[in-house]
């Protein structure tokens, strides 16, 4: 009897397992076409990038395309490349300041807009303008503002008798000039995200804090901001990744100069690929940049505990 029961259970388990396998196979078959398309569209260029980074590919010499004799040559050159190291440092500074300022200003404006006053509501749309402008237009606007000959700001400074340095050609101010323009362009995105999150904060939480005697700033810092921590994380991460892609402002305003003061890593990769045709070397730079971005994103997520929140 015992033998019969156990064999029946085994048979049931086997049938369940078989059904699970069949279901899994069916799901895989259903997903296969979509996964194949995704592989081609997303992964193939990345694989091509990584493969190219192992070759000394230069456009002037087609035989370098499949030359894998020294696969780590580009990476060895990078390790010894002072200009590359400098570009990483410039990138780190740019990302730190732009993300920090965009979050701070975005939160500030979102809190103001959340007050629901008539005036604030009326100007809300105006704040979104920089974000919807094409990046090249933003770069042109700031190029005009930073060029003393044609800048209304510099005319005003001159009229007031102030001597203001030319920001984009000053080694001390060029990066700040990029940070200012980038912050102006993108703080509305963080503002919009934070504003949307603020509108989901339950009134009872705020009321409870008030009843407990919390002041406005205490409510903001101890109740509201922790509540929208997830949104702040996403906003910060989006901006961090985007800051690593900063290009039009640098291309148009400073071209990486003066010297290499504003030469970020992707601009350096662009120069190597499109001005000098070193596609292999440029691919290696890009691979390192992708890795740095992935590691940074992972670190930020881990350190802030995003994804573990209820």
């Amino acid at each position: 009897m015992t033998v019969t029961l156990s064999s029946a259970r085994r048979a049931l388990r086997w049938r369940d397992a078989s059904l699970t396998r069949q279901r899994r196979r069916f799901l895989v078959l259903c997903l296969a076409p979509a996964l194949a398309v995704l592989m081609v569209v997303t992964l193939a260029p990345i694989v091509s990038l990584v493969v190219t980074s192992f070759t000394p590919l230069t456009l002037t010499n087609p035989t370098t395309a499949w030359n894998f004799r020294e696969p780590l040559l580009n990476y060895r050159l990078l390790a010894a490349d002072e200009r590359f190291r400098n570009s990483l440092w410039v990138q780190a500074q740019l990302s730190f300041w732009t993300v920090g300022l965009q979050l701070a200003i975005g939160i500030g404006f979102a809190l103001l807009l959340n007050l629901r006053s008539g005036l604030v509501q009326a100007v809300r749309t105006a704040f979104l303008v920089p974000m919807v402008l094409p990046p090249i237009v933003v770069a042109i606007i700031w190029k005009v503002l930073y060029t003393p000959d044609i800048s209304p700001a510099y005319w005003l400074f001159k009229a007031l008798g102030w001597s203001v340095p030319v920001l984009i050609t000053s080694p001390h101010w060029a990066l700040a000039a990029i940070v200012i323009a980038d912050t102006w362009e993108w703080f509305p995105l963080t503002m919009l995200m934070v504003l949307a999150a603020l509108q989901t904060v339950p009134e009872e939480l705020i009321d409870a804090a008030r009843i407990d005697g919390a002041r406005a700033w205490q409510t903001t810092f101890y109740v509201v901001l922790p509540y929208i921590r997830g949104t702040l994380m996403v906003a910060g991460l989006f901006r961090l990744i985007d800051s690593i892609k900063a290009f039009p402002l640098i291309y148009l305003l400073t071209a990486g100069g003066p010297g290499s003061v504003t030469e970020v890593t992707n601009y350096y990769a662009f120069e190597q690929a499109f001005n000098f045709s070193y596609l292999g070397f440029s691919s290696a730079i890009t691979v390192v940049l992708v890795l740095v971005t992935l590691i940074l994103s992972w670190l930020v997520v881990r350190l802030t505990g995003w994804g573990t929140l209820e």
Partner: protein
Amino acid sequence: MAETRTKPTRRSILSGAAGGAVLLAAPPILGKAKSPYAGTTIRGAAFSLPFHQYLRQYFPEFEEKTGIKVAFDIEAFPVYNQRMDLELSTGGSSYDVIIVTFIYQGRWIGAGWVTDLDRFTKNPEDTPPDWDPADFIPGVEASMRDAKGHTYAYGVEAGAMLLYAARGDLIEKAGLALPTTMDELIRVCEAVNGKEGVAAWTADSLHHWNWPPYLMGMGGGIFKDPPKDLTPMLDTPVAAQAAEWYANLLMTYGPPGILSYTDDQALHSQLSGRANMRTNAITWGLPLAKNPSSTVKHTVRYGMVPAGPKGDFPGVACHGFGIPKGSRKKGAAWEFIKWALSKEMLTRLVKEHGYPSVCRRSVIESEPFKQALTLNGQDVAALYLKVLDQLGDGAYMRYRTVPVFPEVGDAINRAISAIATKQMTATAALKQAQAQAVEAIEMAGYKISR
């Protein structure tokens, strides 16, 4: 009367169709003699040059004459070079006529990306003798030939460098003349800088074009013996001295923000009378006397690039029309080049638009050219020809057409910028530029001698 109709037979339909097809094809066959390429459309690409602005007005004439349609893409200089580099490297057939940019000539011709035009010029059926390829100034053509002497492009623009003083009157008021040496240039700058709110000097930020004439004037060079020996010579004491001199010229006598100036900004600083002197290709000097918006038409003066203790080496950048290797319409493309660079067309561009950067000697020495380039009473045509003659076989400009020049030029730009903004001393900045240049040259597979 009953009308009798015969039913159309298959034969009558076929013969009617054949007759119709002959009639449709008739205009090119029966009309006046057009090019054998009639009905073809050629695509061209160029960066923004006055030459194209003028020439495109005559495209309908060419289309009428040959039956070849022309479509041109015009882009900004850096964008054009990047796109064309990629296009040529893939052997693409998107374009049939292109500008072979001066600093890319060594690279594009050396890599075999451009068509040898001798096959057209040496065939009387393709090119009549009076087209006369030998009429193009040899120094201008030198960089568009390979080691065997084959020609891959014909000069569209010879950007011969001259000195332009937008406010020559301020210099005269100070009791001075246009500077002819580098020392005199500094003296003149010192005397006129800031007078009537005018900066004494202006320049665009393409330092690797603007600086070498002064570097060579002091006895230095970019490479040891281009194109044979590409050892960079940027870490020499004379290079440091020349770089410091040039950075001082920019920062002491230039307007605020000069380091970010584009070509257009530098030109406008002169046109509006906010800056005085500049050395650059003749194309940038002509508008000072001829542009309707110029405020300096009656005060502009022209001279040679100030010489250094070792001589004068005015820059000459020669861009030419060529045909990409991948073009499938090379014959039609040559018809276009032949027409655009004929003596007749160039003379018309000179007469009707005052085009100054002609590369044909017969046109440069003609009366219309002299008339067009008599600017504010000065014979600028003579200065232009003097620079081209001085170029000789183009030896001193060879540094610019070696395949690795874009990389080395970039290192120079960054060094001058770093020196001008006092981020580094001239010696340190050029030592860094030298290291970058050596790395780029070795990476490109060239040997250096030290």
